[in-house]
């Protein structure tokens, strides 16, 4: 029997879909525009808010200096590792600036700068990377989740927190940061699916910086863009130039506003580039050429904004110098504070494993105490 001969086969059968099947929405409004959204260097820049942009500029300059200082600290052995965000500062700063005080930021290990721009003490933000403790701050105090080292696992946390806040009737939005590599993880999928089904007030910002350590985006995904993935979950996908802070800020603000108003989650892909290596342990020359890096340097987020603001008379030499000076003060303070040896108590190892220490941990703590006492006496 051929397919055509099967009972019910043929055109008449196909014209009647099974009863439960219907598409839920028109997918078109969910799809990203084909080109990343840009503001700087386009007519849209005429509507820029001078005060906000001057703040963005000062933060960008400070962020660039912060990246340089943190990288220098790895060379001096003060940090075990530092994943640089040089070239990505616009995403980091915009993510911090669009949030209200009560909102939550869910950073990945690369997003120290976003945490600092949100107001976290830079030394507390670097505690993980220095190696004196895993998280150097109280997440509830700053509404910044611990920097997540496993990829994309912080995304379902952001969904759960946003969902819980909404259940309690609180006006809270969660913004979760993830890299292009992180979008391949199962937790990325599960988080986006939960967020859309629950209509949770959460915004996902993918910083597509071109590489997951050494693997380029083309080997990471076959999707047209990472923003296109949104349509499969039933949420809007937005594509934005990640080096254009005015554009990132606008797209993020719109998504945060929408989430706050009960409109549900948004997936935003910011197209940017990691100018430096993955970390100090990485040799980026093995997987990419200088020409590519140089081309992206010509699209530098700090320069893009500086050019626009000076051309429009929103920023002058004095303003540029002021931003630089403030950044130098931050760097000098950070350097000085990071040069102080952290004082650690080995007995802390047994604290905060459980609310109440178990008998087993008490025994092990006593063993270490005895070892430490013996060391002291010898």
């Amino acid at each position, binding site marked *: 029997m051929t397919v055509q001969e099967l009972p019910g086969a043929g055109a008449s059968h196909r014209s009647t879909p099974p009863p439960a099947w219907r598409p839920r929405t028109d997918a078109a409004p969910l799809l990203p525009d084909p080109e990343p959204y840009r503001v700087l260097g386009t007519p849209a820049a005429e509507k820029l808010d001078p005060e906000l942009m001057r703040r963005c500029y000062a933060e960008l300059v400070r962020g660039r200096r912060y990246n340089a200082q943190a990288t220098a600290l790895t060379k001096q052995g003060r940090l075990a590792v530092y994943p640089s965000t040089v070239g990505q500062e616009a995403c980091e700063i915009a993510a911090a600036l669009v949030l209200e005080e009560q909102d939550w930021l869910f950073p990945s290990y690369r997003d120290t700068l976003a945490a600092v721009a949100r107001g976290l003490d830079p030394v507390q933000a670097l505690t993980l990377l220095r190696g004196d403790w895993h998280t150097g701050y109280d997440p509830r105090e700053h509404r910044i989740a611990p920097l997540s080292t496993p990829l994309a696992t912080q995304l*379902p946390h952001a969904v759960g927190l946003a969902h819980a806040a909404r259940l309690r009737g609180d006006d809270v939005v969660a913004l979760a940061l993830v890299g292009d590599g992180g979008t391949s993880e199962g937790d990325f999928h599960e988080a986006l699916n939960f967020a859309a089904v629950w209509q949770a007030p959460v915004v996902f910002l993918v910083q597509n910086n071109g590489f997951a350590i050494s693997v380029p985006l083309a080997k990471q995904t076959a999707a047209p863009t990472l923003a296109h993935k949104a349509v499969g979950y039933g949420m809007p996908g937005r594509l934005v130039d990640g080096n254009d802070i005015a554009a990132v800020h606008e797209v993020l603000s719109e998504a945060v506003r929408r989430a706050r108003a009960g409109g549900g989650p948004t997936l935003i892909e910011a197209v940017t580039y990691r100018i430096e290596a993955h970390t100090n342990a990485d040799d980026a020359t093995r997987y990419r050429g200088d020409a590519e890096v140089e081309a992206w340097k010509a699209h530098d987020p700090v320069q893009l904004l500086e050019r626009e603001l000076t051309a429009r008379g929103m920023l002058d030499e004095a303003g540029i110098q002021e931003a630089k000076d403030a950044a130098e003060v931050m760097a000098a303070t950070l350097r000085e504070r990071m040069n102080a040896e952290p004082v650690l108590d080995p007995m802390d190892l047994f604290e905060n494993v459980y609310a109440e220490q178990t*008998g087993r941990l008490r025994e092990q703590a006593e063993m270490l105490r005895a070892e430490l006492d013996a060391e002291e006496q010898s």
Partner: protein
Amino acid sequence: MTTVAVKPATMAQALGRAMRDAMAQDPTVHVMGEDVGTLGGVFRITDGLAKEFGEDRCTDTPLAEAGILGAAVGMAMYGLRPVVEMQFDAFAYPAFEQLISHVAKMRNRTRGAMPLPITIRVPYGGGIGGVEHHSDSSEAYYVATPGLHVVTPATVEDAYGLLRASIASDDPVVFLEPKRLYWSKAQWNPETPAAVPGIGKALVRRTGTSATLITYGPSLPVCLEAAEAAREEGWDLEVVDLRSLVPFDEDTVVASVRRTGRAVVVHEANGFGGPGAELVARIQEKCFHHLEAPVLRVTGFDIPYPPPMLEKHHLPGVDRILDTVARLQWEN
């Protein structure tokens, strides 16, 4: 005078009642998982909760264990007390990264600033004729992870009491439910549930003098049956129910083994690297001079869980326990 009838209740009913009472008492308790709402769970443990407390408090989630537990982490970060159901033991494995990298470590990595009061209910173990991936005894994975409490009830009273204690705990608890005991019954009054010890306390379920059987969860009734049968052989066996694998009540175990001088650890999980290996190590460290024989184990074989038609050969039964007890007459 009104008397509340003491009716036979199943372990399944006691577990459901524990969640219901916790939810009624504390508005931050939220139950979530696949099928826990409208259906009441595939084992009907959560039956009626969605109706009584609404879908926001007893939530049918998408089918995604990492997502369920990951979302629960975020909810706990915001001050809720999520109780998540993993439906079957082997279905929990996709959630292991969340469990191990975040749930178990959040208190520690934030130096106490962010404890996670999450209860993870995992129906576990075999003996119900389940097909592949429905009968694993996965407790070794959990007990090997610092930061988690791991408890498992073996009686109807404990099902209620331990689950209430787990939900009230400020630390994450892996709550292992011996699914083959779901339908075991006991005289139990849900209006005045007897106070049972909480997390971290073992109980001597049967006193004896010849040897101690140390067990937990689904193997408790088997051990009690074996102890009865052993009387005919002239053995008077003590049976210790651990109830809590982490923390482990060393005092109760050590006191019992020092009294009897002989011990057998019984569990369904694979023997190699199983919880019994740790227990035996601790017993020989603490009871060496009191022991009359090597400490032995009766465990599941070191094989992937067998197909249902062969599982009776794999699971520790009365005969295997008695044969092992016979080997405690050590003479060389």
